[in-house]
């Protein structure tokens, strides 16, 4: 099964099980979780079932195209099922069958792996899934997102597409993967890996990224009317009504800050003590967006909840 048939198979599989098939986010993200179709939709009472590919950037993982397993950009297949259905594990195992791995012939195990994103103020409990000793997926029940307790709970399934494809195609080097008949992964991405590794580690303009981080961070406050004042127990104070806030552009700024932080990190421009401060700054604006999103959906009467009730 080539790389693109793997994607197409998963798209069809999850579409048939009621997921919206959407497209990757058009800004740099470190994981599918950053896509607003996960981060924002996991918040609040509205149901949401979605699946998409997410090209994910991890600047520090770049190896200039020299390492057979590590990439600064790879592809996740992300599925969100909200609320998590009782048969979510069975659905996941069925999806493995769909891509040609019969679970009864392999050793499939659910190994404890709790997930946390300090920048997004999000965490969940779950597993990494091992297929014959290879970690192929992350399986997480979101407990909190943007500092807000999740209810209902979203089940998040994240497939590591390159790893699964290497397994299915029996290759040891990611660049040998067949993307489509006659086209190798390396032909598409090897040069890109070298260029981006060089950029991330050596050439990215530190001052520019620092400035961009600061300005985008500031813009979030402007877009949301986030006051510097704090309420009781450190509660955030907004000077704009929920529907006056530009939540989606603000979230875009959060995603950009997170990415610039990753670039600065890869450039070695962030010391250990500064690191925590940067993470705290992103977490704060992510929380402001999360709270604004919730307030906005509430002001709109949680439309998807009403749709679901009407459908019943």
């Amino acid at each position: 099964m080539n790389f693109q048939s793997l994607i197409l198979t998963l798209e069809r599989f999850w579409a048939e099980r009621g997921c919206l098939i959407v497209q990757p986010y058009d800004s740099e993200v470190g994981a599918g979780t950053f896509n607003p179709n996960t981060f924002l939709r996991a918040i609040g009472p509205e149901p949401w079932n979605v699946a998409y590919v997410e090209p994910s950037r991890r600047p520090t993982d770049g190896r200039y195209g020299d390492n057979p397993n590590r990439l600064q950009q790879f592809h996740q297949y992300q599925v969100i099922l909200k609320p998590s259905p009782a048969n979510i594990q069975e659905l996941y195992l069925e999806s493995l069958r769909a891509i040609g791995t019969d679970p009864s012939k392999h050793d499939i195990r659910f190994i404890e792996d709790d997930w946390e994103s300090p920048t997004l103020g999000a965490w969940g409990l779950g597993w990494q899934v091992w297929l014959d000793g290879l970690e192929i997926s992350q399986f997480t029940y979101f407990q909190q997102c943007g500092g807000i307790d999740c209810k209902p709970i979203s089940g998040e399934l994240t497939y590591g597409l390159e790893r699964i494809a290497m397994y299915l195609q029996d290759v040891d080097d990611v660049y040998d993967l067949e993307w489509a008949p006659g086209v190798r992964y390396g032909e598409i991405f090897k040069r890109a890996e070298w260029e981006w590794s060089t950029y991330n580690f050596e050439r990215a303009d530190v001052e520019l990224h620092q400035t961009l981080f600061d300005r985008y961070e500031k813009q979030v406050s402007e877009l949301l009317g986030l006051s510097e004042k704090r309420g009781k127990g450190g509660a955030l104070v907004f000077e704009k009504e929920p529907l006056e806030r530009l939540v989606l552009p603000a979230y875009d700024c959060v995603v950009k800050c997170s990415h610039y932080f990753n670039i600065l990190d890869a450039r070695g421009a962030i010391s250990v003590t500064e690191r925590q401060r940067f993470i705290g700054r992103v977490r704060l604006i992510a929380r402001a967006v999360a709270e604004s999103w919730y307030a906005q959906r509430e002001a709109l009467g949680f439309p998807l909840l009403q749709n679901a009730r009407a459908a019943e």
Partner: protein
Amino acid sequence: MSRDLLIEIGVEELPASFLAKGLETLREAAIAALDAARLEHGEVKPLGTPRRMALLVEGLAERQPDRRERVLGPPANVAFDAEGKPTRAALGFAQKNGADASAITRVETEKGVYAAVEVHEVGRPTQEVLRDLLGDVCRRIAFQKSMRWGEGDHAFGRPVHWLVGLYGDEVVPFEFVGLTAGRTSRGHRFLAPAEFEIPRADAYVDRLREARVLVSFDERREAMVAALEKAAKDLGGKLVVDEFLLGECLSLVEYPFVVPGGFHERYLALPDEVVVSVMRDHQRYFAVRRESGELLPAYLNVVNTAEAPEIIRKGNDRVLRARLEDARFFVEEDLKVDFRSRVPRLDGIVFQAKLGSIGDKVRRVRALAETLAPADLAAKIGEAAALAKADLTTLIVGEFPELQGAMGRHYALAQGVDPDVADAIVEHYRPQGADDELPRGVIGAALAVADRADTLVGCFGIGLVPTGSADPFALRRAALGVVRIALEGPIDVDVRRTLAAAYDGYQGVALADRAETLAKLEEFFVARLRVMLRDRAPADVIDACLGAWDRGSLRDLEKRLVALSRLRETPAYESLSVAFKRAFNIAKDAPAGEPEPGLFAEEAERALAEAFARERPEIEKATAAADYDRALTLVAENLRGPIDTFFEKVFVMVDDAKVRENRLKLLRAIAETVTRIAHFHLLSA
């Protein structure tokens, strides 16, 4: 009459530590609840796999015993009016206890006369009691972390899918997390996925075995170990037993199959520790060694399903190959750098925010370690101290932190560092725990002590003192390590001097007050010693020796302990401990100064004074030379008789002040001399 009770909670894969803690709390809650409900029962057995927690209560009585009890109410003067009729208070009391007014009686108690009723409660059938009880028991199960799922209304370690409650062959339909218990369970996720019914509680283990689940931990473990040993033998080697891995694998599978696999021999050129770590920590594989001890290029994988072992093996081989290839790459890259040239990079690694870098620590440890070993080792100690932490900057330790030390030694040897120095690099991390190996060489031991003393002083100096179960810097383990090295290892340690020198090594770091910090630390050591020496001597003997010890040499303390323990085995011990305790207590407030022979009024005191004057120089000399055995032998052989006679014949507290004070002076001098060996007054009678 009794029957067995079964509870099964079917869950999504629970982590190993969750299963253990969840089952422990389930068992405790069940026992507490059954006891509180006055339900007699036999053994309560925890059973479980990653997908289920279960409890089997054997021989649970079929009903509660009836209860007859006299319940006391208000005092008689409140309970009865002038005519002897029950008051409103008494009637309320009776009603509350389900009794008629006519049933109220008067009883005499130690506190006076009270109203009382006889309560007679008929025991309920167990089946009826269990329905509410089991739900409550399940709600008391605790985990390290709980989670919610689906609509988010319930919390547990992982989502719950089914409940079984059986009392004998009857269902107990208790309710928990929105589910109602029945008799339907599920088998192995892949090998027997169909639901099935459990006919009766005592058929549970057998019925699950048919469904390819070994639910008993013991049975599963035995099957796993047998399969591992057989597979190792088939490979022509022996299983490398690893308790951590056994525990992990046991709670990752419902039925243990073993699939062997292999890797290319070229990876055996890596240090054994690396190969074993890659297999164990990343993949949870067991290693196999030849009889001669070398690693085989093979591994054993405990899996949950093995319908197609060749497929599983192929996949695992590939994963391991990539991991070993990474490790080989790391080691090759690491070796391209001169190991010695890594030392300056330690300045960039934080030891503790307030205590500076690892580089700072290394410089302090070096100076301190030099004071702990003979001067001719100073050069080697200097080199070893500098190199001891250098492997923290290597790629391989970045990937496998548990290989710190071992890799430092490996790289040092590969680059021609003196073998004594290289050994010290790995040895200075020892002992890791109470049962771990100690450093064998003097250099490693000196570094180990200096490293721990530096950490202890630094942490205490900035207020990071262990409290209760919280000891994030493992300071208790560090102190125990120092003690074990001194008592069982190659060098003695002077606690007071070493800690003081460690404190003085923190130049330019703001630590808390010197005297206060050091005093706290000495007490910390004394507290550790008190616990640690318990398997060598009774608590009072330890306290007696700790009292006389100057908080200096640990071996000096040990000698006192040995000598006093030896004395304890002799017939003289009993009377000596009594006599010296008496002497000490009487003479506590005695005036200072030597007794005057002219003031002795009785033969017995004169004899004691003479004996003491005769023996004293030798006893004190032996004490000063830390020959406590000899000191105590002299005391036992030559002072015991005179002091016993003294206390038998002489009344100390006579009216004549001069005679009395003189006697007290004599006792005080004797007490002082023996107290320098051990605090006899702390011995229990």
